[in-house]
């Protein structure tokens, strides 16, 4: 009755496969080290934004989305959200320093939760910084939507071949050395494009040059582990509808502990189980023999 050699070898073989898988998971679970290449970033200065929605129009034009609804313009007290037909929206808030406009879209996190969540790498952080979505890989599981702390990815619920819709920082244009459509189209100069380092320096400089005009914080420098869209505001960010409860750690870290324990369990469990099995089957045999 005890475990015979063939069984044992088979069990071992299967375990080996399992260990292999575990190892692979481990290697890739470690987040890729940032290489020397610097991420691009967009700096949005809400003190300059006139709320003209130029960026919305440019974005719709660039990505073949329907024109912005003329009935649905920014109004105090109304929150317009991005959805499957618009990748960026302007909202307006009444604050202690008057009305302030805010542009909302994907933040292009340095370590994006959405891309870590994606099991097909359809959601993908390019080496240059933009987080893009790739149609031919996506299986539409919407785990990216669950994971993004800013609820950015949107889904086409009324299509039989639905896409995930979100800002991709105009990756196709950026690749060719052009500016993102919204940056190019902003008549007020509220949007600036460059490397992330430059944009942070620029934001710092604006705060230092005009300390009265700005609230002393660059939103996106540390939020969610740092993002490639950086925001300046005249007032504290909770006044203009920002999610200030996001953590400063990158979100993928929340699952890292779990993923790291996977290979350990893959190695330890089978060994322990096999050990118990041998121990118990031996003691059972002894009992049986004694009974005979």
């Amino acid at each position, binding site marked *: *009755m005890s*475990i015979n050699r063939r*069984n044992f070898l*088979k*069990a*071992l*073989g*299967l*375990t080996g*496969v*399992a260990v292999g*898988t575990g190892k*692979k*998971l481990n290697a890739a*679970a470690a987040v890729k080290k940032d290489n020397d290449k610097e991420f691009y970033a967009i700096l949005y200065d809400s003190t300059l934004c006139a709320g003209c929605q130029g960026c919305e129009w440019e974005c719709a034009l660039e990505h073949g989305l329907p024109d912005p609804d003329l009935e649905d313009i920014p109004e105090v007290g109304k929150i317009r959200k991005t959805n*499957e037909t618009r990748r960026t929206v302007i909202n307006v808030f009444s604050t202690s320093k008057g009305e302030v406009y805010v542009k909302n879209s994907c933040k292009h996190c340095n370590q994006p939760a959405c891309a870590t*969540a*994606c*099991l*097909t*790498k*359809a959601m993908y952080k390019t080496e240059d910084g933009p987080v893009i979505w790739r149609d031919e*890989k*996506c*299986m*539409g*599981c*919407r*785990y990216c*939507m*669950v*994971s993004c*702390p800013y*609820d950015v990815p949107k*889904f*086409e*619920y*009324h*299509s*039989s*071949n*639905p896409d995930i819709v979100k800002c991709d920082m105009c990756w196709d244009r950026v690749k060719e050395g052009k500016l993102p459509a919204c940056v190019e189209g902003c008549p007020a100069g509220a949007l600036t494009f460059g490397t992330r380092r430059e944009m942070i320096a620029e934001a710092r400089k604006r705060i230092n040059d005009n300390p009265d005009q700005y609230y002393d914080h660059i939103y996106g420098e540390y939020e969610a582990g740092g993002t490639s869209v950086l925001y300046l505001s005249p007032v504290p960010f909770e006044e203009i509808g920002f*999610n200030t409860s*996001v953590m400063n750690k990158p*979100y*993928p870290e*929340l*699952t890292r502990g*779990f*993923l790291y324990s*996977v290979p350990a*369990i*893959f190695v330890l*469990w*089978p060994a322990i*189980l096999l050990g*118990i*099995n041998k121990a118990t*089957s031996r003691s*059972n045999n002894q009992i049986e023999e004694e009974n005979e």
Partner: protein
Amino acid sequence: MSNTDIALNRENGRKSVWSFLASEFKPKGKLFTPFNLISIPVIITGVILIVIRFAKGLGAVTNLSQETPWGLWIGFDVVTGVAFAGGAYVVTFMVYILNLKKYHTIVRVTVLNGFLAYVFYAGALLLDLGKPWNVINPIIGNSFGVSSVLFLVAWHFLLYMIAELIEFSPAIAEWLGAKRARKILSGMTLGAVILGITLSTLHQSGLGALYLTAREKIHPLWYSEWIPILFFISSIFAGLSMVIFEGSISYKVFSDQISEKDHKSHHDIIHSLAKICAVTLFVYFFMHVLNFVHGKNYEFLGTRMGHWYLVEVIGFVLLPLVLFFHSYRRRNLLLVKIAAVLTMLGVIVNRMNVTIIGYNWDAPVQYYPTWKEIVVTLAIISIEIWVFRWVINRMPVLREAPSWAKD
């Protein structure tokens, strides 16, 4: 016994294999049972809805929205269904690893149940995918998102189904009268069991880990870094309660298949399972309390969500825990069954709370499933029961294995 006779005849000539299979595919028993009368229209409606869903998109059938990307089909079918399938790894652990022979009579039916649950409930994942044809991407390896918890869970579902199939395969071989195949397949059982338990540990907790990144979206009373461990522990008593519940139904419905001896030992088994449920429920309850104290979530207790949390933890964890202890002491079968049902309800409530009710609990528009989502879910459960019944009536699952297959 007649099956084995047919099966043995098979070896006399190739031709009879087909007539054997053909005869096996014919329905056995009455067609117009109450269960059939209810389930057939449900299944038909469900299939129509699934066709609509694929033709017109998820929005045509579900209430899913940009705020609630995962609803009933993930929260209930997949996350809860898989928890209930946990009985298979626990029972195989007791039978093959701890060598507790007394549970041997329930191992096949539990594994069958687990296997079917994975096929249907994990399979329900496909219904929920926007582009299900791309599901091959993470499988054939042209795009591995290995840092994704969902990647791990999906792969484990797949591997675990294979492991369960191997564990169950000797019953199929016995049904077909394939002696040599049976021998080889039973030789693989231990390996499959070890793999299966390891996979289960990881993906039962992995289902919880899926929600770890939704840190701000899940109500603080339900979000904690411990979700994976809580999910894992609860899968033990969820699975065993299911075994108790399903067992007490099967032993009535299929009583003609069960020998006198098995009938007697079944009571004994149920009481032992009740004890394990009690102990794991206790650990689970204890962790909930620790978690609550650690999270310093006192201020929420006065709110509506807080009351609901107390209902879950006291009504569906503490109460069944006490009932299980009592039933074991008093050897009261009815109490066990009540406790099992309460526990199962509790697991449903818990999974709903994490995945649906507590998810974006403060959103202005709350998600609730459409009747269509519910009917599709019921249709999936009904089809599973049909397949289960089909197998039980043909293969040696509850009844004893043919004499040639005795070890």
